[in-house]
């Protein structure tokens, strides 16, 4: 247990827990509103922001925040135009964002930063200042979802119906994408841009199978997220594997397990 007294390990645990909360709440909304590919688009576009951060010589997270928010609003606004194909648009944002990131980092003079830790995450190197930032962003997400819960549920379930009933659905849709962007910022430190989608979808998809209300789904998804991130972190330490990838593989196995156990319980219900 010596390991848990080390400062970097304590920070890793804080980061894992903060990431789990965000992915439980926002991941549930992403899954029920079917925003998974849009979330993937925002995450990869945001890589341009990390490149921008390096280029300007600031903490890359501060480049990541504005660029991920801009890409969320950009994808959200253009995809709602009648003639745009949302699918192709995501692909374009995705690749152009990553390409700009690579170029900006290439233009950065001097030392070439460790790209790997932003693409695949490195939870062991999260500084305390980033923990505070993650805490602040989590607080923002929670407050917003708490205050707009009934509207967000309505928009996820039946957007047109909600609009007729007087809900400002366009604003809420954009706001939801911005919350996804903020969640991506929180998750990048833990699992990296490429693996963000896993933490947004896996805990929420499992939770969806076992719960009947959105609140409970968010709660269960957050708990599952904590189990996966902390468990994956422990495993990565024991096996000496990359932390982000180990967390995702652990979560993926959890998903398979829940799928099988659902099958078996359904079958035994049918045969009894």
């Amino acid at each position, binding site marked *: 247990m010596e390991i848990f007294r080390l400062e970097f390990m304590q920070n890793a645990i804080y980061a894992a827990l903060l990431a789990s909360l965000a992915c439980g709440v926002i991941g549930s909304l992403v899954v029920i509103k079917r925003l998974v590919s849009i979330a993937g688009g925002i995450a990869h576009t945001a890589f341009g922001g990390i490149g921008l951060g390096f280029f300007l010589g600031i903490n890359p997270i501060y480049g990541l925040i504005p660029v991920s928010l801009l890409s969320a609003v950009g994808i959200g606004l253009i995809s709602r135009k009648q003639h745009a194909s949302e699918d192709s648009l995501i692909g374009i944002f995705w690749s152009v964002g990553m390409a700009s990131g690579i170029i900006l980092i290439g233009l950065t003079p001097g030392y070439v930063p460790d790209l790997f830790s932003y693409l695949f995450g490195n939870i062991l190197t999260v500084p305390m200042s980033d923990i505070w930032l993650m805490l602040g962003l989590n607080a923002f997400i929670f407050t917003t979802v708490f205050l707009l819960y*009934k509207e967000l549920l309505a928009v996820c379930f039946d957007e047109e*119906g909600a609009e007729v009933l007087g809900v400002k659905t366009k604003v809420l849709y954009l706001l939801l994408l911005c919350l996804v962007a903020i969640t991506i910022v929180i998750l990048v430190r833990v699992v990296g841009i490429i693996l963000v989608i896993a933490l947004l979808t896996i805990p929420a998809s499992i939770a969806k199978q076992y719960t009947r209300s959105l609140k409970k789904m968010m709660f269960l998804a957050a708990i599952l997220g904590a189990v996966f991130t902390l468990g994956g972190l422990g495993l990565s330490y024991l096996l000496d594997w990359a932390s982000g990838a180990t967390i995702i593989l652990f979560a993926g196995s959890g998903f398979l397990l829940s799928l099988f156990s659902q099958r078996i319980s359904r079958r035994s219900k049918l045969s009894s």
Partner: protein
Amino acid sequence: MSKVEIKNVSFSFGEVKVLNQVNLTIKDNDFLGIIGPNGGGKTTLLKIILGLLEPDQGEVWVFGQPPQKGRWQIGYVPQRMNFDRDFPISVWEVVLMGCLSRRGMLQGFTDEDKAEVKDALEKVGMLKFKDHPIGQLSQGQQQRVFIARALASSPKLLLLDEPTASVDPAVQKEFYSLLTLLNQHMPVVLVSHDIGVISSCVNKVACLNRELHYHDAKEMTQDDLNKTYGICAVEMLAHGVPHRVLKEHKH
């Protein structure tokens, strides 16, 4: 006073004209059936009334206001929706959504709203399912829940899009008696591709296929149906509720 007033409305998707110079008035005790073939513009017309689409030409007034201002007074029952069977929302929560029409952002639902929801669920006979997830109900039951949602918004007009598309005839009959009951308090507008839905409860009929042909009396002429469907419509009656829509006619 007329509830909805549509004057010379035209609408196109790109090059394709979907509605051409449509005029329609919905009055106090109307029970209007709008029929027409698939692709004839029925759903487009509903979306224009609801302010979800803007017409290229013409005027639309909903309770004397532009649709986006007046539409909260419409109880809208959408066509069968595509949601996952395990979508995490209960019947109660779906109907509560109807109360959003009078609650702004940051305002919680009140006891009055909850009483309204209970009332609406009782009216459609679905109160005992209130805690069920909506995805686990049958099509007919889901339809009732969406009517309850419309009622919970205390509407002054009920608008239904293809309400019986996938419901069996016995349930359909029950469904129409419910609508007849509701029609005592508010106008009801029903849209369908199936002439069979023009059952005994409808008191006005409009045929829509790009152009709208409107009838105060329930009986249509063979000529109207020919204009709308372009073929003799007798076959289309075969699978409806046994009820005569057409005057006797010769082939």
